[in-house]
């Protein structure tokens, strides 16, 4: 299991990287943390003519806070995001999800940008960043554009990124402090890719009714799947047993998962419903807690 040969470019700054991409982008690949790309190279599932190693681009390794946004440089290691105290505080959803990505040793190296561009449909970061209404910042020699993650993920491991473009940043609006959150995942072992994972964000009003509900499920489609109908169902309601049953059914009915070696389509469909309920219940409880309301669900 050794990779095929490739031309190796190691730009020292963004400008060089963009120039290299303009020239070789179509037959080359960007190498970031390598935690997804290199296994594919080693197995020869991918054999690009050249690799553009962006690990020298220190300018893409940052966490910056400004005017209601968190800006995450694409080269930020997953582990750095995980351990950052401000991220933990302001983005508890990310803090909850990050430890589920692989293992410490892969997160030490794997980048936020790599995870987003790799766009595995079960991956935690794409799901959560999309739930948080994140925006991809794409840069090429031609200029820069911003694409909301809602429209960035196109299909299975495919994004809107052009061959000459680099994902340079993901920016995320800082959520309201009284937001409830939950990330739940069902995987067989610690560190495995999820069978199904769910991200939920919501707020509650003083009657305990849900507002601003965001519910996305991963692993049941080619991209993280926002569950608009379910969000609608929940909005304006208080969490309870009958709503739970309704939600579970609705979610199961609105996903079309594909079977794989770890579970049948039927199983994953069911699991999506179960996990969605667990996520909403958890997020609801937290929203209520944050409002200082005792909650007995």
């Amino acid at each position, binding site marked *: *299991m*050794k*990779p*095929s*040969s*490739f*031309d*190796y*470019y*190691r*730009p*020292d700054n963004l400008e*060089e990287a963009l120039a*290299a991409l303009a020239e070789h982008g179509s037959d080359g690949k960007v190498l970031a943390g*390598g*935690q997804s790309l*290199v*296994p594919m*190279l*080693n*197995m020869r599932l991918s054999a690009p*003519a*050249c*690799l553009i*190693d962006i*690990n*020298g*681009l*220190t300018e893409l*390794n940052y966490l910056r806070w400004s005017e209601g946004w968190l800006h995450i440089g694409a*080269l930020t*290691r997953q*582990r*750095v995001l995980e351990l950052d105290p401000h991220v933990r505080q302001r983005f508890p959803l990310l803090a909850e999800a990050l*430890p589920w990505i*692989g*293992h*410490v*040793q*892969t997160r*030490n*190296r794997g980048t936020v940008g790599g995870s987003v561009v790799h766009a595995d449909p079960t991956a935690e970061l794409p799901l959560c960043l999309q739930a948080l209404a994140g925006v991809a910042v794409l840069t090429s020699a031609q200029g820069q554009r911003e694409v909301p993650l809602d429209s960035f993920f196109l299909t299975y491991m495919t994004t809107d990124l052009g061959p000459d473009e680099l994902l340079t940043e993901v920016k995320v609006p800082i959520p309201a402090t009284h937001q409830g959150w939950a990330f739940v995942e069902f995987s067989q*072992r*610690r*560190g495995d890719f999820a069978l199904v994972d769910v991200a939920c964000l919501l707020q509650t009003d003083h009657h305990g009714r849900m507002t601003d509900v965001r519910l996305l499920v991963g692993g049941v489609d080619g991209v993280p799947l926002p569950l608009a109908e379910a969000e609608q169902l929940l909005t304006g309601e208080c969490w309870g047993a009958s709503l739970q049953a309704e939600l579970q059914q609705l979610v199961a009915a609105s996903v079309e998962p594909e079977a794989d070696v770890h579970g049948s389509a039927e199983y994953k469909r069911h699991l999506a419903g179960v996990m969605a309920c667990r996520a909403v219940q958890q997020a609801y409880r937290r929203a209520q807690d944050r409002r200082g309301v005792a909650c007995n669900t």
Partner: protein
Amino acid sequence: MQHVGADARVRVNLCVNGESHAVWVEPRTLLCDALRDACGLTGTHVGCEHGVCGACTVLLDGVAVRSCLLFAVQASGAEVWTVEGLADLPQGPALQQAFHEHHALQCGFCTPGVLMSAAELLARNPEVPEEEVVDVLSGHLCRCTGYTSIVQAVQSAAATVRESRGGDTVEPRNSV
């Protein structure tokens, strides 16, 4: 911008365990292969070459990473630490002794990688709770021991490190 042609070989200066090794590699040469074949440091083992088993784990600038998912050219300028240099790390002897006493290895094939992850862990936090030890070790497959003894060994080494604290530890840094 550095460029190496696909069929070219490039001279890379690898700093391993504090020693510099000038080696000729292809761009595609994996770091684990360069360590084993070019540097002659066969203590780092290769068990899967797709990032799961953890046998190849080394420290890159103090951070535990899979050497099968890095190219040797990428390690140029970085400080690589392998099991051969473990005894020279402040927490190394405590780990070696604890693994011995707790029978935390059998065939010893997974062991070098496990030790390097443990070395990073203890450098970062010798106060480490059991759950975190288990979590870090979940990045390693061991088919011999059933893990319990490894968890115990790491905790016991952590206690030794705590007792002897005051000496310097390897600072985890994030490499870019």
